């Protein structure tokens, strides 16, 4: 599904990604973990086409996408749920869930409004509300829903539970788990919180200072408290 090979990304002169490689197979949930400032979000942005890498290759569904514009990548079937939600303040909930759907009638069948509402009940009664009036948790649900209606094959989620109250962390986590159970979506998940990462992901990459320092099955990480404390804890 997704193959990232040795990408190097800069923000201006700042050398953020210094050779990152990872891959996500079909139907897999992969977590990208590490503390703040190590380059997780930059990796997501590079894959989504917002901050293209200067060197390296990104192959999605067999096509090289590292220099495609973000909207082309989105049309190919990649959906981004960005850090900080970033929903559109002037658009209503209903608009979020309808205007970005692709034209492909076949793919539209998968994610109907009804399905989104059953996944995220709080959105059902807020269809006419503008995005800026929702709470943090509701915004996060909307951000995920907005991307789901585009029927992506690969979902990039950047810290979906960040800044949410425990109640919403549970709700969102539950939603992601049910997505995982269906097995149709591949998910690349960025998380800072180890417990959430372990719960949701099958495979993990841990980053530090712009490079991947550990990768393996989630169970494998459970037995390595040393890695946990060095790269994730205090």
């Amino acid at each position: 599904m997704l193959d990232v090979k040795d990408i190097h990304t800069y923000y201006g002169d700042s050398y953020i990604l210094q050779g990152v490689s990872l891959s996500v197979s079909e139907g897999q949930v992969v977590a990208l973990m590490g503390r703040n400032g190590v380059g997780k979000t930059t990796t997501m942005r590079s894959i989504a086409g917002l901050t293209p890498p200067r060197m390296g290759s990104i192959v999605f569904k067999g096509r090289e996408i590292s220099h495609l514009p973000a909207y082309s990548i989105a049309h190919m079937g990649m959906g981004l749920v960005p850090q900080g939600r970033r929903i559109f303040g002037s658009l209503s909930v209903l608009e979020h869930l309808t205007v970005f759907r692709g034209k492909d009638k076949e793919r539209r069948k998968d994610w109907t409004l009804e399905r989104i509402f059953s996944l995220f009940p709080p959105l059902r009664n807020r269809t006419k509300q503008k995005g800026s009036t929702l709470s943090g948790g509701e915004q996060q649900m909307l951000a995920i829903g907005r991307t789901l209606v585009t029927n992506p094959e690969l979902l990039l989620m950047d810290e979906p539970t960040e800044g949410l109250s425990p109640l919403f962390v549970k709700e969102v986590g539950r939603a992601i788990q049910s997505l995982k159970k269906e097995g149709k979506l591949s998910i690349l998940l960025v998380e800072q919180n180890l417990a959430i990462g372990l719960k949701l992901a099958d495979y993990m990459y841990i980053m530090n200072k712009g490079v991947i320092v550990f990768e393996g099955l989630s169970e494998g990480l459970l037995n390595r408290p040393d890695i946990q404390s060095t790269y994730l804890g205090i």
Partner: protein
Amino acid sequence: MLGSLVVSLVVPPWLSPFLISLLNLIVIYAILAMSLDILMGYTGLDSLGQAAFFGVSAYAVGIVITRYGLSWEAAVLMGLLLSTGTAALSGLVVVRVKGLFFTVITLAVSQVFWGISHRWGVFTGGWNGLRGIPRPFSILESNLNFYYLGLGVFLVAGFLMYRLVHSPFGLTLRGIKDSESRMKTSGYNVWLHKYIVFVICGIFSGVAGILYSFYSGFVSPGVLSLRTSFDAMLMVIMGGAGTLVGSVIGSAAIVTLRNYLSAYLDHWLIVLGLVFIITTLYAPKGILGWLGVWRGKLPIREPVGPVAESGLIETFTPVSEPIQGNTDQSAIRSKSSSKMEALRLENISKSFAGVLALDNISMTVYSGTRMAIIGPNGAGKTTLFHTISGIYYPTAGQISLFGKDITRLRPHVRTNIGLARTFQITNLYPTLTAIDNIRLGIMGIQPSKYLLHLPVVSLSGVNKRAEELLGLIGFWNYRNTEVRNLSYGHQRQLELIMALACKPKVLLLDEPTAGLSQAETKSMVKLVTSLDPELTILVIEHDMDVAFEIADEITVFANGQLLIRGTKEEIQASAAVREVYLGTPWV
């Protein structure tokens, strides 16, 4: 430079009347263009309204002489007064906004004057304008002689403007262009600087207008029109913004073009339109930029790679100065009897459109403390720094610095009381050299920042201190490198030194080691730990090793709240902290 001066003095008597009239216009518009260059190229204020001051003073001369029959001295005086007054008044409104707003509003305001000039016919002569403005002296009736007068005024104005841009005040303008936020947190009242330069440039534009009025003997609404403002801007850009000389070249180019074209082509406006388009597309940096002469210096590329890095570790030697301490910091600090309250936060909350970023934070930090602030992303750490330094005002609560309430003070005032900070994303002045960056850091709290007439390089006190500060990181040899050509690691270090330059008592460091290599991180930690023990330091860090090495106390933030505060051991042992970082799975 000297050659062109000789040429401009010696050659003209041999030229045809047409060329002499061109020369007159060139020097007049050069003054206008240079005044715009100071605003645009040096301060970053793109004004499309300079025609207002040019035209107002031109009309003042015309009206005073033809309507009131007064002397030329009165006319010149009125011209200067009116352009100064207009700039002073409009500056109050216009300088409050930035960027696109500023440009559109300056355009709108100058258009208002244009409208007045052709509607208030009784006073201004309407579309026909005012004719018959005589030259002050009969000797000036000759265009050649007038040219020499104009050249003289141009040279004086040019000299004054040259001194201005090389003065301490001039340096502050370039700092504002590169990073207003940095200037504000370095102690500069940015609004005031912008206002002063706006008025000064308005006066220079007015001088050009006065000359124009006497030269052409005739004023019409054209002098106030959009076209004059746009022509001036094109002159600046075509010659090369930020160079002063470029504006002179641009003036020569555009004046020549306009006059030759209109003499030979009926529809020369189309060519002028194409000139606008082609210049923008292909020569955005102007003729001077195209020739690679940017402020007379070519960018010096600093050597990057292992050589520079290791050089950095070796040259870094703790200097036995009052600003630097000895090795046993914590012992000295705990022995210090002055346990003054350096920083106090009481019930600080900050919300953004319903999202509570800081939730009822209260903490007291005593002087000499080294505190690290850690916590997961989105916990509110940088928001905390922004609130303490004045970039945000809290929604509730109070902040005191050494007992003084600073809650509503603007950032530059806080710096002058003793607060300094670094930024998470490097916030230096990219187009300025390392030493100019430091100079700005030093002058922020000094009155010398308002000096207009001396070259900034002549301030020996500032130079000496710059040498000391740059020496702390072994930077003296790189002092003339433009900051944007420095490696990221070097920029991060310079960022720290900049904060030290304003003699702070409380220092906020926002992720000082972000993006640094192992070696660079080591240098940075060494630097921070050797700072004056009297200095109170708060550091946001994600690198736990760094945090633990620098700090005596750790404060953990999560979800906008202050979770816990204690020693390293206490924090490492805390279950609550572990949960915040590693999390407990939900059921």
